[in-house]
C-alpha cells in the first residue's frame, strides 16, 4: 500500500506551529489506513501517548469510550481543553506512565500507539 494522506492541516499557505499534532496525519486518515471505522466502532479504546488528544478525540464518535493517557501533564491539560471545546463526553484523559497503566485487566478492546513507540 502506498497512498498519500490528504494534507494534515487542511491546506497550504499557513504557518504550521512547531511540535504540533497538526504535523501528523488527521485521525480520519490514520483510521482509514488501519482498516476504517469497524476497527473502532463500539469498542473500548485506549490511546497510549495521547498527547493533546488528537487521535482520541478523532475516534471518540465511533467508540463506546476512549481513555487517553500521556506522561506530559501539559499535554493532558490541552487534551481536556480540546475535549471540552469539542463537546466530546465519552473521553477521559489522565497523566500517567505506560509502564503502570491505571486500568483493570482486559479493560480495552483496542489500544493505539500512534507515534508513541
Amino acid at each position: 500500500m502506498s497512498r498519500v494522506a490528504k494534507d494534515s492541516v487542511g491546506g497550504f499557505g499557513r504557518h504550521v506551529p512547531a511540535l504540533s499534532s497538526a504535523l501528523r496525519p488527521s485521525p480520519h486518515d490514520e483510521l482509514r489506513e488501519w482498516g476504517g471505522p469497524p476497527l473502532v466502532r463500539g469498542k473500548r479504546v485506549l490511546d497510549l501517548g495521547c498527547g493533546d488528544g488528537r487521535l482520541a478525540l478523532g475516534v471518540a464518535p465511533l467508540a463506546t469510550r476512549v481513555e487517553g493517557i500521556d506522561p506530559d501533564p501539559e499535554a493532558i491539560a490541552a487534551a481536556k481543553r480540546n475535549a471540552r471545546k469539542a463537546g466530546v463526553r465519552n473521553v477521559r484523559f489522565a497523566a500517567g506512565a505506560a509502564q503502570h497503566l491505571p486500568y483493570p485487566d482486559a479493560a480495552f478492546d483496542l489500544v493505539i500507539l500512534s507515534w508513541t513507540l
Partner: protein
Amino acid sequence: MVDALVEVHRVLAPGGTLVDARPDSRVQAYAERRKPRGFQRFGVVKTSRLELANDRASDHVITRVVRDGLFERRRSGRFWHRVPFSDLAELRKYLREHLRFVHRAEWVVDAATRKRHSNDQFVIRRAVRYELLEALRSPRNNSPARPD
C-alpha cells in the same frame, strides 16, 4: 519499552487489537514544491541517526513481544503523509528545529531553482507505517516477557 507492552497486553481483552503507528524511517522523506498540478521533488530528507536507532529499538520490542507470545501480527502497511509549509524558509526552519530528520535536506535542484521558488508552498512527504497486532490469551511459552 517491553514492560509497557506487557502492560498493554494486560489491559487488552484477549483477541483485542494493538495498533502501532509511527514514521517509517526505512524509506526516505522528500522535500517537494507544490505546483498547480502535483509536486516537484526538490530534495531528500534523511532521518537522523538517533531516530533511526530509536526506530530499530521499537522494532526490536515488537519482535520481542510477538516472540514471547503476547501478540500476533495481523496486518501491516504504509501510507504517505504530507506536512505543508508556507514557503521554503518554513520548511528549513522545521528541519532545523526538529530531531527526527537531519537538519539539512539533500537538494536535487540547483541553488538558482531553489531561490526562484523560495516563496512557493512546500511539503515534506514522509512515510508512516502501521501494524495491527492481536492480543493472545496467554503467552505461548513458559517464559513471559520481562523488561529489558
